[in-house]
């Protein structure tokens, strides 16, 4: 993906967010007897956000910059993020220890191609260490 294309799409995303901020802020009091209301500040930064993001969109369209963003490793990063999300979802049912062991196993065996037993032992030991340090030693509650 070209850097200019990325600027175009991220500019559009910011324009959307800015429009939402302006829409919400316009529903709140702008100024009252005691001074500026809750809508005052968001309205102004929402307007600035839309203006800047449109500037970014327009300048990205007119840009002659041919530099590209390197996404080659991004698949690994997104896969890791997906595993993190899955682990968080799992925590509700299995608790932290099992979900964290599964996350460690995934990163070791799938992302770094370690042997299955390395991932399994690493996951169990890491979970046990977390339980010992945070729950037993520091009295911290885990999910």
């Amino acid at each position, binding site marked *: 993906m070209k850097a200019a294309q*990325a*600027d175009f799409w*991220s500019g559009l995303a*910011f324009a959307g*967010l*800015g429009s939402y*901020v302006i829409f*919400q802020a316009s529903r*709140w*009091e702008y*100024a009252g007897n*005691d*001074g*500026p*209301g*809750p809508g*005052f*500040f*968001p309205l102004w*930064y929402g307007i*600035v*956000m839309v203006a*800047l*993001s449109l*500037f*970014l969109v327009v300048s990205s369209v007119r840009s002659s910059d041919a530099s590209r*963003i390197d996404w*080659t*490793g*991004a698949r*690994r*990063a997104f896969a*890791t*993020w997906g595993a*993190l*999300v899955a682990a*968080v979802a799992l*925590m*509700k049912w299995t608790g*932290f220890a099992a979900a*964290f062991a599964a*996350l*460690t196993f995934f*990163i*070791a065996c799938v*992302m*770094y191609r*370690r042997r299955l037993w*390395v*991932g399994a032992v*690493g996951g169990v030991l*890491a979970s046990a260490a*977390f339980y010992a340090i*945070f729950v037993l030693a*520091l*009295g*911290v*509650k*885990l*999910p």
Partner: protein
Amino acid sequence: MDVVSGLLQGFSVALQPINLLWCFVGVLLGTVVGVMPGLGPPATIAMLLPLTFLMNPASAIIMLAGIYYGAKYGGSTTSILLNVPGESASVATCFDGYQMARNGRAGAALGIAAIASFIAGTVGVVGIMLIAPPLARVALAFSSPEYFALMALGLAMVVLLAGRSMVKALLAMLLGLWLAGIGTDLFSQTSRFTFGRMELLSGIDFVVVAIGVFAIGEVLANMEGRAATAALPVPKGWRNLLPTWQDLKDSRFAFVNGSVVGFFIGILPGAGSTIASFISYGLEKAVSRRPEQFGHGVVEGVAAPEGANNAETGGALIPMLTLGIPGSSTTAVLLAALVLWGFKPGPLFIPENPALFWGLVASMYIGNVMLLVLNMPLVPLFAQVLRTPVHILYPVILGIAIVGVYSTSGSLFDVWLLAGFGLLGYVMRKLDYASAPLILGLVLGGPLERALRQSLMMSDGHVSILVSRPVSAVMLSLALLILLIPVFGKVNRWRLQALEK
């Protein structure tokens, strides 16, 4: 209270065994964090922040500050041995440090880095001690308009130096302002941007955003590659880590240059240790009698950036403690920590909490000595940290992030937010959006809105109050000038060239 009695009180706090222990833990953790590429001080401090709620605030701030300046010491190790900076502030150290290591002088490079860090770190602490109290007294005269103008100026400086595109930096800052606005408006009790979720009524916790953007974002960015880099060997034996007398003589100007440049650049919001180390390196090269040898392994090319990098810490703490304005991501996290413990950084912070302020200053003297003692003989040991298998290291960082966030609120909703902010942090990196403006916008968003609304209440809604008072008028004019820099082609080209270099 004068400086001497303040410092004596500070040492009585810092020398308590429990505070010595936490100071040691902080500098040790900081060194390890500095050694590890990809895990910076803001991420570490943010992750450990929830755990400090169990500690007394003096011990907690001593430990967190120890991580901050300890990481600066540790950052040189990977720069010299791996040509991979542990953090961006150590990039300039790579130029000559790695070349020295390739020439078989890794020990001398590591030794001079530790000595320069010690000297400059100590100069930085002296600077805090002498400048912070008078600056706080001046700031006592500030009212809401001056505070609004000061925060606007601070944010403008951060935007100026955050990256190539000021528009993108401004958008990141506005995103931070929006995130800060989520929750209940304290003036009117109106809930804003809560999407009907009860969990958002009290706002988004700073810790969730900071850990997500820094820690998870960094892990995801590091996960892109699988290959590891081989480190050059560290010479064994104490004597091999000591620089020669000639090395020390060659570095004497670099020690002064690094200390002074680093400290004063640290005071400026947004400049940060990366810029400090590059300016100091450039200055050293400019005045050197052998500029052509820079980049080929000259010892002052290590001493100057390492010194600047460490002195910057002292300078950066001054606006954070005395004005409540952080100039970097790490000081923003430290500011949030003080607020979470119930303190209000600003002009009254030192008079109201002398034991905490002077205890922190005294602990930094002690911490710098600890770091020198730790770093000289234990560098080979710290270098072993680089051998930690990444397939274990990264899950552990993710686990600490989850536990850190969950322990603050006890809510899985916050852990979901953490994952979301992690993705945001990663995507921002890929799309070249700086994270510092986002974090500073988040930290300053609430106070900025409060100061603006209070100013307008003082003036019955007349915006002219912001420009009719001389101090705020000057600061707002400066902020405006900074934001208009892209319009001035020549100045903007100079800014871009400086950032490129």
